[in-house]
């Protein structure tokens, strides 16, 4: 059962890492605009310029 003491922190670590990601994402303005990103992906690859 010792393995629990390894798996639990590991799961928490992974979780914690995602929390950090989440905070970074929110702070850096990733989620300020939740409308245009969904629209924008529809137009990005039709711009062959040559």
């Amino acid at each position: 059962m010792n393995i629990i003491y390894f798996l639990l922190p590991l799961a928490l670590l992974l979780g914690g890492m995602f929390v950090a990601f989440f905070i970074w994402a929110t702070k850096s303005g990733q989620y300020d605009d939740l409308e245009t990103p969904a629209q924008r992906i529809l137009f990005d690859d039709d711009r062959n310029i040559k």
Partner: protein
Amino acid sequence: MSTDSTNTGHLEEFSYNDRITKWFVGATMLWGCVALLLGVIIAFQLAYWKFNLGLEWTTFGRLRPLHTNAAIFAFIGNAIFAGIYYSTERLCKTRMFSDTLGWLHFWGWQLIIVAAAISLPLGLTTGKEYAELEWPIDISIAVIWVIFAINFFGTLVKRREKHIYVALWFYIATILTVAVLHIVNSISLPVSLMKSYPIYAGVQDALVQWWYGHNAVAFFLTTPFLGLMYYFIPKAAKRPVYSYRLSIIHFWSLVFIYIWAGPHHLLYSSVPDWVQTVGMTFSIILWMPSWGGMINGLLTLRGVWDKVRTEPVLKFMATAVTFYGMATFEGPLLSIKSVNYLGHFTDWIVGHVHAGTIGWNYMMTAGMLYFLVPKLWKTHLFSKKLANLQFWTATIGLVLYMMSMWAAGITQGLMWRAVDASGRLVYPNFIETVVKIVPMYWVRAFGGVLVLLGFFIMVYNLVKTIQFANKNNKDQAEDVYAAPPLSAAKEEHGASAHRKLEGLPMLFSVLTLLAVLVGGIVEIAPSLLSDKFVEKAPHIKPYTGLELAGRDIYIKEGCYVCHSQQVRPTPSEKLRYGDPSTAAESVYDHPFQWGSRRIGPDLARVGGKYNDMWHFRHMINPRDVTPKSIMPNYGWLTKNKTNFKVIQKKLKVMKALGVPYTDEQIANAFNDAQMQAEKITKGLTEHGVPMKMQSKEIIPLIAYLQRLGMDSANAKKAIEEGQE
């Protein structure tokens, strides 16, 4: 934002590396055929044992791991890579970080698949489900995965689009988590070039294995495909995802909950109750985000349902999302303990898995390929009719598959536990419960054929499309695009330096994770090796050298894909198999062999149930002693020689892993094993077996089978005798 970038007026030109995507698409088609064909073959093997072909390399026990590995890592893996590279480059408006790394990734992965395709039929396996590949291949997987990660995160860092679209988040979670899972679960000590023992044993190995196994489903079969869903469905429907906000919530709730649900594979096992309850609870909570995602995917199609009828891409993807909803409803249901008791070890689980892999992964992949191939080769699909034909064959095939497995699983589950008024088993002979579901195995095999046929139709359709493009469409040069650099808006000078900073948190996190992981393993390993159970159950002794050799044959032949070794603590299991399994009983089992399916009966307490001669005849031809058995013949066990010399090395490695062998046992390993083999063979000679059999593999296997459960049985007998 867009006004900012036009102010600076500076645009960078770039192109996408679609060649690598094309190769991954090709590999997906090729390995898809192989994986599904293998699935059909093993389905027929269960319906009729002669399809095992009487050859060592083609029995169910060896081909089933090959099928699962080919389906998950070769077929679905290549599909993921194709989709991730294609969409990531476009979502980031940049070429992939490094073409060289991309090619290394591609060829490295294909080499790994070839190595798996050779080693698994040869019986070179770790005996851990979905992680069967031996240590040199495991190391290669880790290396190639890191290459993929560098290429992916490098691409993110040099992106020209500030916002990280939700699909990319799903890819990030996939790449990081799979790396951790694979490394933690694969740590083992080698005995030889292609044989190793995991450092974990028994309960610990079970927990690590199903923590891995469950999350492999979560982060290899689910999160990457959700990312692909969030990219390809809006693209194909030409409208944004129904609710972007919901997709963000979907992502974050999923990654936080999924990782805890693994123990639902170990309900009613000798894992502590509270661990089981945690697993069950999180599994039920999982239902919510899963359905949020499904609803989001389906509602994206609002207003274009007419296109779902006519466009193969949308038709496949809408169906895939629907099956995703079904599978993620069934999963939490099966995690409820009482439901699990009925469904676990039966074909219900097999049906559930295929609702996911065929319904969700295969259908999504088909939709994605129908989208990608015309785009990449700049042409139109060869035939929509054929695509429709594939859709219907695959869907009908899958429905037959699921229905038959539900019927088989529930039937067998009910038969196992049926107890009559006088408290006796209604079906005491296991074989009765097997014979009953064989018709269902035929239906399943037929459903599988339809799914495979559908795939062949798709490959034909796509190959035709590509051929047409290559002939008529000379312009296959890479398109060139232009976009402002990410940092142009903020500062013109030192822009590149700033862009580097932008990626720092990501890189930093990854490095931290790796560092902590390595540190954690180094620190934790010693404490893992000295498990406290050893003192608690002194009557449990390590296997003898010969038994250990037999155990390795058990693993090599893949007996664990048909047999469990874990008696659950319920009245009907006690009647059928004996006392419930305890944690102490598998404390020396590197790896654990609890299994996940009972195509044959549980073997945890088979020791002493039959005599050696019964096993001898049963292994050569099970139908000799159990008419109508569907177990394969293992005739070669009477011809292949036991490698007595390696036994000493095996004991040494086990000792290093904490199994308390004495120096004397190790010094005499060779002779002790020879003597035990001689003793068993002498007993068999009374029934006409020649003495030269003592050097053959069947002897250690019998020794192992006869040892299973004996330590506890003997201890119990001693106590009872003492009381009298």
